[in-house]
């Protein structure tokens, strides 16, 4: 590969990109994607931390989501929906695939091979994050008896902080249908809570 080719295909040092991209509009797709990453990485980690108890799995699934997002970013059109809704759509598929593979007995780390080994401090950070999501995970357990579609509505809006419009995009339903679903889910939860008291 020639020097010129390397200049075209190799990204600049990420730290430098981050330093330049703050406070002004992005000048390249990589800078644009970095802003998408910064806006969403924390909430996506939370999404996986509520589902997995292993820091390495949370790391793998978060990484896989962003790798897929990066591959598809050229086709992502923000005029059709928010980047958060788009990323949650990817995350849902990544997690579904993880569950399918886990059910088949395959090791997640091997399946998502290529990701680096985490340092101890990173594992501790992720373990803290999993711990911080305990309340969210408990809410999800309380939602266990709700239909899956209503459970997803509660989680996306009340735990992940998506707007009803964004959550509707993730689930592929109309805004009206989604709001009905969310209202129904909250009502059922409230009734269940009252009956438990």
């Amino acid at each position, binding site marked *: *590969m*020639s020097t*010129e*080719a390397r200049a*075209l*295909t*190799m*990204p600049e040092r*990420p*730290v430098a990109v*981050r330093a330049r991209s703050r406070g002004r509009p992005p000048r*390249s*797709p*990589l800078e644009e*994607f*970095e802003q998408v*990453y*910064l806006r969403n*990485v*924390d909430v996506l*980690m939370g999404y996986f931390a509520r589902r997995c108890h292993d820091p390495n799995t949370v*790391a793998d699934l*978060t*990484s*896989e989501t*962003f*790798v*897929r*997002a*990066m*591959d*598809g*970013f*050229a*086709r992502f*059109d*923000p*005029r*059709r*929906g928010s980047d958060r*809704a*788009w990323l949650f*759509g*990817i995350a*849902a*598929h*990544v997690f579904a695939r993880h569950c399918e593979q886990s059910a088949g007995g395959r090791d997640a780390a091997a*399946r*998502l*091979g*290529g*990701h*680096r080994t*985490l340092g101890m401090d*990173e594992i501790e*950070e*992720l373990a803290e994050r999993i711990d911080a999501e305990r309340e969210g995970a408990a809410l999800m357990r309380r939602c266990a008896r709700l239909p899956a579609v209503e459970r997803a509505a509660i989680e996306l809006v009340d735990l992940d902080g998506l707007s009803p419009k964004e959550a509707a*995009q*993730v689930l*592929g339903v109309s805004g009206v249908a989604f709001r009905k679903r969310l209202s129904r889910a909250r009502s059922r939860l409230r009734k269940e809570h009252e009956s438990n008291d």
Partner: protein
Amino acid sequence: MTKFTDHLWSDLAREHGATLMNADRPEPGRAPLLRRPRVLAASTLGLAGAGTALALTLGASSTPAFAVTTSGDGSVLVTISQTTALPQANAKLTAMGIHEQVTIDMASGVAAVSGPVTCTPAPGVSGPPVKVLVGTNGTQVINSGNTGAGTWHLAACHLTGDSGSGNTGNTGAG
């Protein structure tokens, strides 16, 4: 950011940032109306004689074109009009049951030899032979004003195991 998210971004930018360097992002403004994708005859892009056309998709102007064709000898020809179409072509390979992914190295200037480049398989990769053709003759011209403006050719092509990362749309990607 935490150390994990900081390191993850560094890894993403280093290992996958190249795929974004030439990406054509949608222009700001009103979203275009959804249109059904058009399927054109292979000859329209000068692909006549390449074999059985399995996919040739042209969408809106921002959607890059690609084609994946098989020849009688079992080899596969991946044709991309621009490098940003490579992820879509890789997804097509996966959809066809070919669990290898193509990566390419571009170099400046016009291709010394016109035509497709045969991919070098990574150790352990045992799929059918795969060739890649950029543009109609191996040369891609990026107009001035765009990232990486100039004339480029496909210098090398590699075939690696499928990492499982698919293409994504705006909703329900995976």
